């Protein structure tokens, strides 16, 4: 078996623990795996940013807005370091679909640890791509991540085509108009799934739309805190 990233052979040492197990899939070799940097230690309880304050200034700002913060909480797993940036670029922009599998275990685990209370009633909604972007890429990275979560999934959001988020400045992102629309209502809590939380604007656009259409609580699980 080869490492999904560096293509080097992964040699699994045989021990009494795994001798009788069916070969468990490891996506990355240990050297590549070490380069993924998990968020640990003190973080903003609201958006997962590394912070000594309980609630970071950005989140305080969101809460102070007229309608309050539509997002209950975001949880992110990894830091956006150079290695992660390289993986995401190849996965999402080059379209190397299989790289998404690197994150399967971690996502499953994070969901179990952080959102256990949602398991019974909530539905998972991946952040969608516009039709045009979807045609270009052939897959939606958020939907792939959502697929790793053992909960009901519904693609009820649609997106109007616009410029890529990654090409916009912070100000442009925060002041952008809501690019999402939906045609049905949903009166259940929602767990939104996306690859990166940068300013949190995209997730909040989706959250406020969902709230306007019947959902009373919206949470988010993202792979990376940018």
């Amino acid at each position, binding site marked *: 078996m080869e490492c999904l990233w560096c293509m080097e052979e992964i040699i699994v040492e045989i021990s009494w623990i795994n001798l009788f197990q069916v070969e468990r899939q490891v996506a990355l070799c240990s050297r590549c795996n070490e380069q993924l940097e998990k968020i640990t230690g003190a973080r903003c309880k609201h958006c997962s940013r590394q912070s000594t304050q309980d609630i970071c200034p950005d989140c305080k700002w969101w809460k102070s807005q007229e309608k309050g913060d539509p997002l209950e909480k975001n949880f992110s797993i990894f830091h956006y370091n150079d290695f992660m940036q390289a993986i995401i670029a*190849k996965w999402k922009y*080059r379209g190397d679909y299989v790289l998404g599998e690197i994150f399967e275990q971690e996502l499953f685990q994070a969901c179990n640890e952080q959102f256990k209370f949602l398991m019974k009633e909530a539905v998972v909604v991946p952040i969608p791509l516009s039709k045009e972007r979807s045609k270009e890429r052939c897959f939606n990275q958020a939907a792939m991540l959502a697929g790793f979560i053992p909960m009901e999934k519904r693609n009820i959001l649609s997106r109007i085509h616009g410029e890529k988020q990654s090409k916009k400045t912070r100000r442009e992102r925060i002041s952008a108009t809501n690019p999402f629309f939906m045609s049905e209502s949903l009166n259940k809590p929602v767990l939104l799934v996306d690859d990166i939380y940068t300013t949190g604007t995209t997730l909040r656009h989706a959250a406020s739309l969902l709230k306007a259409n019947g959902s009373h609580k919206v949470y988010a699980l993202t792979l990376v805190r940018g």
Partner: protein
Amino acid sequence: MEERAISSEHLKFLLSGKLLLRQEIPLDEILFQKLLQQQIIRKAGSIVQKGFSNQCLRCGNKKTSLFATIPCGTCSKTHLYCRNCIAMGRVMECEPLYEWHGESVSWPNHLEPCTWQGQLTLVQEQAANRIIKAIRKEEKELLVWAVCGAGKTEMLFPGITAALESGLRICIATPRADVVRELLPRLKKAFENVTVEALYGGSPTKAGTAQLILATTHQLLRFKQAFDVIIIDEVDAFPYHNDASLPFAANRAKKKRCTTIYLTATPRREHRKRIQQKKLEQVFVPIRFHGQPLPVPQKKICFSLKKDLKKFLPPKEFFTWIPNRKNPARQLLIFVPTIALAENMHSIMRRYLVGMNFLKNEKEMAFVHAEDPNREEKVLLFREKKIQVLLTTTILERGVTFPSVDVAIIDSGHKVFDEAALVQIAGRAGRSPNDPKGEVLFFHDGKSDAMEEAILSIKQMNRRGGFK
């Protein structure tokens, strides 16, 4: 109507000799479909089943582990895509590749295209004449074995001139983008009135429409039956030598009657074998352009090397050599086997060298490696002598010229330093006619076969060049 005619003329240049993905063809869907219907553009297979395995027909990849499946949003099926060449755009089972079947381009016959003013040495001229003959007689292959510093690029000019005069299309392909960037201005200057196009990952143009193309070998993945002459520079170098898809692409980029010229200073075993069996024609250039022999490396055994390297210390013998160099005015180029060693040894060595009064301050030393974003800048500073000591991994083993340096390899017995690498590294010394000597030192703790072979091969080349 007028506009259509111009654009279809342009299309011919853009698409003939190529093998492209749909997204690489800058045509709106209506026009594209029309050309497809007229069979001016035709579909070609992308990923096909061959026996029990699959093959990507763009890069030749057959390794099962380099294919993966994707649930395709366009056709709602799950199918294969190639991971091997994905950096050049994703090849999928459901999408064909496209090739041009319209009118072919006839390239102009240039009249005296060469604007280079220099003069070849006698040996260079012999090799240049051999290259001309290969091109004129449409010989299939020729290997030019020229020692480091022989002036390979200049030797190519007469051959390129002959090809341009007879209306041939030429590609000079080299494994590394650094080399493309370095060659481009030289080639442009040598052929001022001919359009020279450079293609590499991130190059300003991507069109590939010129008669004379300078490209990384990866870029050949987009060509099919395009060139009358292909010159493959550094044929023994990474990644061309290690990645089977690059020779696959180079082969496909050739027209039916095509001359391939390989350039190397250190031919690999398979080429040497084919030369011995008289299956590959070769011309040997044993003398550097300044007429002086290659510096022969000296071995220095360092008994505590492994212990020192654990602490990222250069060996003691290195510091005894420093004040005893024959020409202290030379800059110092130091090779180490790994990036980690380059990073960590850099600060320690820098402190020592300042302490020894060898350097005036710590800013006079720098280190580079393959992933260093400031690599070009640091190399330039070294070339301008603003840095005295440069610590590097094998990334600078070839393709770079510094006029007056001494070269040290620390842990030369390490497996990254194979024979070719050692010969190339040794070839960095004594490049200038003003200082043709230069010292080369191998610091090791037990000589490897590669070291022995490298020294033997350098001595042999000197002997063949008429030196004792």
